[in-house]
Structure formats: C-alpha cells, structure tokens
C-alpha cells in the first residue's frame, strides 16, 4: 500500500450535495459532525468546495433541474474520488421513483461507490457506510430468498 492509499484510508474530506432531497438526509449528515457522533475524530471533515473533496455525499433523488449541476460538481472533484449515495431517495428513487420530475436515483446519473439506504439513515449508518466505502468494515446485508419446496 503506497503513501497515497494510506492517506486516503485515514481521512477523507467530503463535500455534501443536495440533489433535491427533503433535507432529512442532509440534517443527518450534519448530525454526524455533532458532538455525539463526531466524525471529525477520524479526520473526515466537510469542505465547502468540491475541488478540495475526496468524496461526494449526495442526498436526494436527482431532480431534473439539479442534474447538470450535479454532473458539473462531479467533474470538478479531482480524482481519486468516491461517490456515496445517502438515503433511500438516492438509492432507488425513494417514493419518487417514477415521478416525472426526478431521474430515479443516483445510480442513473453518476458512478456510485456505495449506497447508504435509510429514510433518513441514522448518523451511525452513515458512519458505517463511509467506513465500508473505505474498506474498513464488512457488508452486513444480503439477499434473502425463501422457496417453499
């Protein structure tokens, strides 16, 4: 593992984008920075421009209006970057999955590294998701299939 990989695993700087969300996920992302969950102890901090960011935290089903701006933000973020989809709306469109005004989730617009479902996901779930994107914790969900033979 070279020096760059080691730095990247330790402290990523995130830029938060609201792609049409109701703000619930945005407030929970803000909650991760507050004293009880304190993500800054891991060196992860919120930055104010995508040019300083290592990861994009995107919340919301991507609305038509925001799509070009979102792509512009994605292109301004320097490589290597991670795109993290926060919330059920960016995972699959939420309840707006077939609305004429949204594009049905982030997977249809950007290459996503990890999805964090929840409505809104708890701050602990967001921490877990970011840690999973960095390869620090294992995945906990799996398909559940039952067949009556």
């Amino acid at each position, binding site marked *: 593992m070279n020096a760059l990989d080691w730095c990247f695993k330790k402290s990523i700087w995130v830029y938060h984008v609201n792609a049409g969300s109701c703000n619930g996920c945005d407030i929970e992302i803000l909650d991760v920075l507050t004293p009880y969950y304190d993500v800054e102890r891991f060196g992860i901090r919120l930055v104010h421009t995508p040019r300083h960011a290592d990861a994009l935290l995107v919340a919301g089903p991507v609305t038509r209006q925001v799509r070009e701006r979102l792509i512009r933000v994605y292109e301004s973020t320097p490589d290597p970057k991670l795109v993290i989809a926060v919330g059920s709306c960016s995972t699959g469109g939420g309840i707006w999955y077939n609305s004429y005004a949204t594009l049905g989730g982030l997977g249809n617009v950007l290459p996503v590294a990890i999805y964090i479902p929840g*409505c809104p996901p708890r701050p602990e779930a967001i921490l877990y998701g970011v840690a999973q994107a960095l390869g620090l914790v294992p995945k906990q969900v799996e398909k559940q299939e039952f067949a009556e033979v």
Partner: protein
Amino acid sequence: MLKHTISELKEALICLEAGQVTLPYPFQPHPPDENFRGKPVLHTRKCMSCGACGNACPARLISIRDEAGIRTLSFELGRCTYCGMCRDACPQEAITLSQQFELSTETPGDLLIRAEFKLVTCRECGHPIGTERQVELVREKLKASDMQLLDMSYLELCINCKRKIFIRTPALMLEVVS
C-alpha cells in the same frame, strides 16, 4: 469588556461541564430503541401472500407474481422508506421491522427479499386457487369457529367451480355445530 469576559467564561464552563459525550460508536455497537423502524423482515411461515402489503406500500416496491404454479413475493428494499405501512396492513403480522440500520451496500440489488410459495390448483379446472398456506388458513379458521363445512373437499375448488357446485346443491354447505 468585563461582561464579555464573564460570558466567555460561562461558555467555557458549559463546554467543560458537558465533558466528553461522543458515543464510542464504531468500536461498540449503539443499538437503536426497540420501536425503531429498520429493515423489514418477512416471516414466511405466517405469510399468506394476500398482497395487502403490496397495496399499502407507498413506494410500490412489493410485487406479487403468479407463474408456473409458484407465487413469488418480492420486496425491492432499495427504495424503502421504512414507514411501516406494510406491517400495519398485514393481517397475519408476518412483516416486522427489525432494528437493522447498517444497510450500506455497493449493489442495491442486495436489498431484496424474495419468497416463493407453491400454488394450489383447483381439482376441477386446474386454475390456481391460492397458496397452500391460504387454504390451510381457511381450514384452521373453520375448525376454530362454530361453523362446519359439510364437505371439506369444497376448499380445493377455485371460486368459479365453487359457484357451479353451489348452484347444483343449493342446500346450505355450512351448518352450525351446536
């Protein structure tokens, strides 16, 4: 100036009093409250695949399909909002919302619950009646009630054949057991 210093001291006192409140979350689990609405769980032994959950779901992620003698119930939980309406609608209490909230994944297709149930077909015309559990449920309810079917093989017919037989033998098929 003095007032300002006093207020700064008060602010410092508040921070000192609070101390360290950070939860040791990733290193120790922080389970949510027992009322927390997390990932839905389907108890397949209780489910009678009636589809009430599918009607109630606001995100319409529950689908029921009959194909080749199998009824498939699938929940695509990628867009679930964890509202609990499926749990409220289920007459058998076969859906519960667990406490699981660490649901992050690289592939939303992993958030899937699929259950396949065998369909029972009508002994007259071969049309599907319902799942084995549904027929079993009717049998149990009748046993537990005051009414008794004169001929229990009536349960193995589809609704059209039931109607035809009822027309042929108009005598009450149900009698009250005293």
